[in-house]
C-alpha cells in the first residue's frame, strides 16, 4: 500500500522547516538572551546583547535570515515504523534544500573541500547532512539545523585516557578560552562523553537541540565555571560567555574515553516539520 505521504509533501515540509529555522530563533533561546541582557554587568556586553535581540526581532518580523551564515543544512529525520512505504525521502530532502536556497533565500555555502568550488545550491557530496532514526510513531519528523562555520570551527574532539574523566572540565574551559570571541558568544555547549570517535561528536551535536534551560546540577555547575571566565558576548568581556551547557553520555570501550565539544553560537537555530501519515504537516 502507498503511504499517504507524497514526495512533494516532504519537499515542501523541508523548505518550511529550513525557512522557520533560519528566520525565527526558538522562544527558549530568545528568553535566555533577554534574561542575560537584564543580568549582564558590562556595558559593552549589554550593547552586544541588545543588538542581538534587535536583530532577532527584525529577522522574525520580516522573515529574513537571522545571520548571513545560513550554515550547512543538517537534517535529523525520524521515520515512524507504522508509516506505509515512503517515497524517495533522500531525494525529496535534497530538493527541499535546493528550493529553500532560492526561496528563503540562503547563502550558497557548500563548496568542494579542496577546489573550494561552490555548488551554488547548498547541496553536494554528503550535503545536506542527513541522519535517519526510526521510532514507533505514525509520522515523519524532519528537524532542520543550519550550522554556521564560526562556531563549528571552534569545536573539538579528544580521545582521553580512560582515567582522565576528571580533566573534562579543564578541557571544556580551555576550549572556551581558546575560542574567545570567534564562535559568537554567548554560546551553547554540546558535550558528548563516551561512545566512539564519531559517536561522541554526534552526542555533542544532539545535545545542542535540547531545551536551552533544561540543565541538571552538573551542567549548571559547569555553566557557572564557563561564565566565570569573563570572555563575554563576542569576546569583549562580560558575564555571559555561555547560555547553556548540555552533556550527553554513552557507554564506551573500557580502554577509551572520547570527549567532543560542539560549540553553538547564540543563534541556536532549529525547527521541526511533523508530517502525519495522511501527508498533512505542520512546523513546531
Amino acid at each position, binding site marked *: 500500500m502507498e503511504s499517504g505521504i507524497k514526495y512533494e509533501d516532504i519537499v515542501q515540509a523541508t523548505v518550511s522547516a529550513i525557512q522557520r529555522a533560519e528566520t525565527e530563533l526558538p522562544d527558549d533561546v530568545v528568553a535566555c538572551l533577554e534574561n542575560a541582557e537584564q543580568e549582564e554587568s558590562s556595558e559593552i556586553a549589554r550593547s552586544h546583547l541588545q543588538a542581538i535581540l534587535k536583530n532577532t526581532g527584525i529577522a522574525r518580523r520580516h522573515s529574513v535570515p537571522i545571520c*548571513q551564515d545560513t550554515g550547512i543544512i543538517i537534517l535529523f529525520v525520524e521515520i515512524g515504523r507504522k508509516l506505509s512505504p515512503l517515497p524517495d525521502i533522500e531525494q525529496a530532502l535534497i530538493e527541499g534544500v535546493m528550493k529553500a536556497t532560492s526561496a528563503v533565500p540562503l547563502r550558497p555555502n557548500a563548496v568542494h573541500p579542496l577546489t573550494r568550488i561552490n555548488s551554488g545550491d547548498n547541496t553536494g557530496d554528503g550535503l545536506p547532512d542527513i541522519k535517519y532514526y526510526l521510532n514507533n510513531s505514525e509520522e515523519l519528523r524532519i528537524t532542520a539545523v543550519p550550522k554556521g562555520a*564560526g562556531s563549528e570551527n571552534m569545536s573539538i574532539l579528544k580521545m582521553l585516557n580512560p582515567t582522565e574523566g576528571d580533566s573534562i572540565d579543564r578541557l571544556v574551559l580551555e576550549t572556551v578560552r581558546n575560542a574567545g570571541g570567534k564562535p559568537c558568544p554567548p554560546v551553547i555547549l554540546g558535550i558528548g562523553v563516551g561512545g566512539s570517535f564519531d559517536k561522541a561528536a554526534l552526542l555533542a551535536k544532539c545535545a545542542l537541540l535540547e531545551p536551552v534551560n533544561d540543565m541538571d546540577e552538573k551542567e549548571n555547575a559547569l555553566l557557572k565555571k564557563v561564565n566565570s571566565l569573563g570572555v563575554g558576548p563576542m569576546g569583549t568581556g562580560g558575564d555571559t560567555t555561555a547560555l547553556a551547557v548540555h552533556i550527553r553520555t554513552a557507554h564506551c570501550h573500557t580502554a577509551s574515553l572520547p570527549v567532543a565539544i560542539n560549540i553553538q553560537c547564540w543563534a541556536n537555530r532549529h525547527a521541526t516539520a511533523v508530517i502525519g501519515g495522511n501527508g498533512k504537516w505542520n512546523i513546531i
Partner: protein
Amino acid sequence: MEYHLKTPLSIEDISPLRIGDIVYISGKVLTARDEAHKRILETPLENMPFDLDGSTIYHCGPLIQEKEPGIWQPVAAGPTTSARMSAMTPQLLKKHNVRMLIGKGGMDNVADSMKGKCVYLAYTGGCAALAVNSITKVCDVHWLDLGMPEAIWVLEMNEFGPLVVGIDTGGEDLFRNIREKVNENLEKALR
C-alpha cells in the same frame, strides 16, 4: 566615547579612537574575506579594479539577491570571524592604505602592524538583519567569480553600528586584554 565617522577615512579621523569606544560608520564600505584577501595580495597595484586608499574593509560574506540583472538587494550582512584574515592583514596594510577593518571576534598578532595607520572594530556577530538596515545601496561588486560570500561588495552604509573599537592606532588590543584576564580566571575556576 561615541564617534560618528564618514568614509573615506584619514589617519586624523581614526587616531582619537581608543579600545572600548563605540563607533558608527557612514559611507562606502568594502566587504572582503579569505579569498578576496588572497587575491588583493596577489594583484599588482596597477591591475586593482578598485581603490583601497582610505578604505574601510568589512570582514563579511553577505547574502545578496539579484532582483534583476545587475540590481542587487542585500538580505543578510553580518560580520565573519576576523581571525581567519590575521595572517594576511600585515601584508595588506603594507600594500594598501586601509584605515579601518570591521569584523567579529578580534584578530591575532596584528596590533603592531596596525600602529599609527589602521583600527579594528568589532560588530556583533550574527546581527545580519540589523546590518542590512544600515545598507542604503549596493554600489558595485568585484571578483564575483570567487562566489557570493567571497566577492568584494561595495556597500553604501548609513550609521552602521554600534561598533566597538577592538584594536586602536596605539597598538592597544581589547581582545588581548580580555584573553589575559580569562587566563587568570581559568586557573581560579579549576582550583
